[in-house]
């Protein structure tokens, strides 16, 4: 049989178990993972311990390290919190809404021959339980919680794992490499990480 049937995971732990199975092979079937993640119906009591918010910006909270094959994390977005435009270091990126809504704006890779801003491809608002997929071959994106009244929580899977990416200035296409850190790991708040790069010092940097 070419494709194994995807069982609907009833709990978050079920989902993690099946993800471990799927990622034990070397190839990733994007559709399979996306359908699997979408089929898990979000139950707040199962992920609440990872949903640790910061008032200033969105947070990244590590849930599982996938035996080194992937990172599974929960991102918490307060009202108005958003990310910069960024890439995904050639990794697969799955993003599922656990609570609230997130707006995803897709951008073309900047073309240095063209003066002026980066080209917006499309935008959409992801609803609860929906799962989006992106890869550098598709383009770049910005993710934001545009609600002024509701926080949002999303579940992200990245494979292979990566801890740095590029952020882009929408007006110029200028890019910067940034290192990514976690606000918490396995439900435990992890201390600030200082990174002294050539141009940037980050305090608990959270770039998706």
């Amino acid at each position, binding site marked *: 049989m070419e494709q194994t049937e995807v069982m609907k995971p009833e709990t978050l732990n079920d989902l993690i178990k099946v993800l471990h199975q799927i990622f034990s092979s070397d190839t990733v079937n994007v559709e399979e993972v996306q359908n699997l993640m979408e089929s898990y119906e979000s139950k707040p009591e199962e992920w609440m311990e990872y949903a640790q*918010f910061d008032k*200033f910006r969105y947070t990244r909270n590590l849930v599982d390290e996938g035996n080194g094959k992937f990172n599974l994390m929960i991102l918490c977005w307060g*009202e*108005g919190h958003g990310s910069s435009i960024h890439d995904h270091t050639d990794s697969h990126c799955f993003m599922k809404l656990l609570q609230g809504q997130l707006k995803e704006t897709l951008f073309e890779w900047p073309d240095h021959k063209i003066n002026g801003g980066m080209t917006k491809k499309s935008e959409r608002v992801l609803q609860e339980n929906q799962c989006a997929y992106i890869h550098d071959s598709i383009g770049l994106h910005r993710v934001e919680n545009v609600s*002024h009244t509701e*926080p949002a929580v999303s579940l992200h899977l990245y494979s292979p794992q990566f801890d740095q990416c590029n952020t882009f*200035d929408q007006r110029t296409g200028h890019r910067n490499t940034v290192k990514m850190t976690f606000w918490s790991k396995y439900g435990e708040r992890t201390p600030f990480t200082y990174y002294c790069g050539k*141009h*940037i010092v980050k*305090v608990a940097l959270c770039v998706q």
Partner: protein
Amino acid sequence: MDVYEGLEGEKVLNLSRLNLDNLDLDDVGEERKRDTQQLFLVYNRFIMLPGSICHFSNLVFLDISCNRLAFICEDILRLSKLKTLVAKNNRLDEFSLPKDFGTMSLEVLNFSGNRFEEFPSEFLNLQRLQSLSLGGNRLKSIPAEIEQLTSLELLYLGGNSITSIPPELANLPYLSYLVLCDNRIQSIPPQLAQMNSLRSLSLHNNLLTYLPREILSLFQLQELSLRGNPLVVRFVKDMTYDPPSLLELAGRTVKSRNLPYKPEDLPGNLVRYLDLASKCPNPKCGGVYFDSCVRHIKFVDFCGKYRLPLMHYLCSPECSSPCSSNPQSDADSEDESSVPAHRMQKVLLG
């Protein structure tokens, strides 16, 4: 974001999603009424805050979001221990609050997603208020009296129709998180640069074309979002200059030559006028100006990454901006005036 410490058992009463339009507490024991510290009435059909709520004499936290509230009755004043009131997504406006609402000892107030067109004056007396959210309403302005909320640390006003920011906002000594995104703000008062407590400033999706130069002095700022503003990207020659009046010339002379004067020497209006002198930032000039000045936009590198258009004022067209002897060089980015990298951890411009 109202993050609260979840309390166990008897202290929390959750009456959410029960289709309630009144609060019948006959089935709630006296002890329970006394012990309850957190009450959730979210997603019901209340049109008014139920008067019976004051039976919860020790209530600290009340969430009555997602109802049909048009009015909050005086009974709420009897909740003397109430610290947090969340009433998001209702139908409240500036006429909905009881007269003495300002006497409550509230610390956290979230009225986002309502119908406020004006800042309710009752809020301005809440001396203990630390966190205020009026996101997603219909506010057109922020009153100068906002400076009375001296305990304020968090102010969320995103998603309104605000066109300008009163300089008095800068007088809030503890404000660390200021959200003004998704409004119609055209300029930032330079006084905001005095806000040393500010850690995060959200200005995205407004009508800003430039920022005041003084913003560079916000050395504690870690987050600044500016995307979705029509920020000037190329050098703009804006040298409109009205010649100074005789009054201005006299004032400039008095100030720049330090001519001594006492308040008794001059009419009161002239003393006040002289107090308004602004120093020209041109280090070679050292002069002052009053009403007559030149607006000058200069590009500054932020953390070696972004070029932001900053506006400052010079006392005459002959003056040049600090750190630049050649006005033409303002067309390119100025390394000498770039913000040190450690100052701005993250500028969400793009």
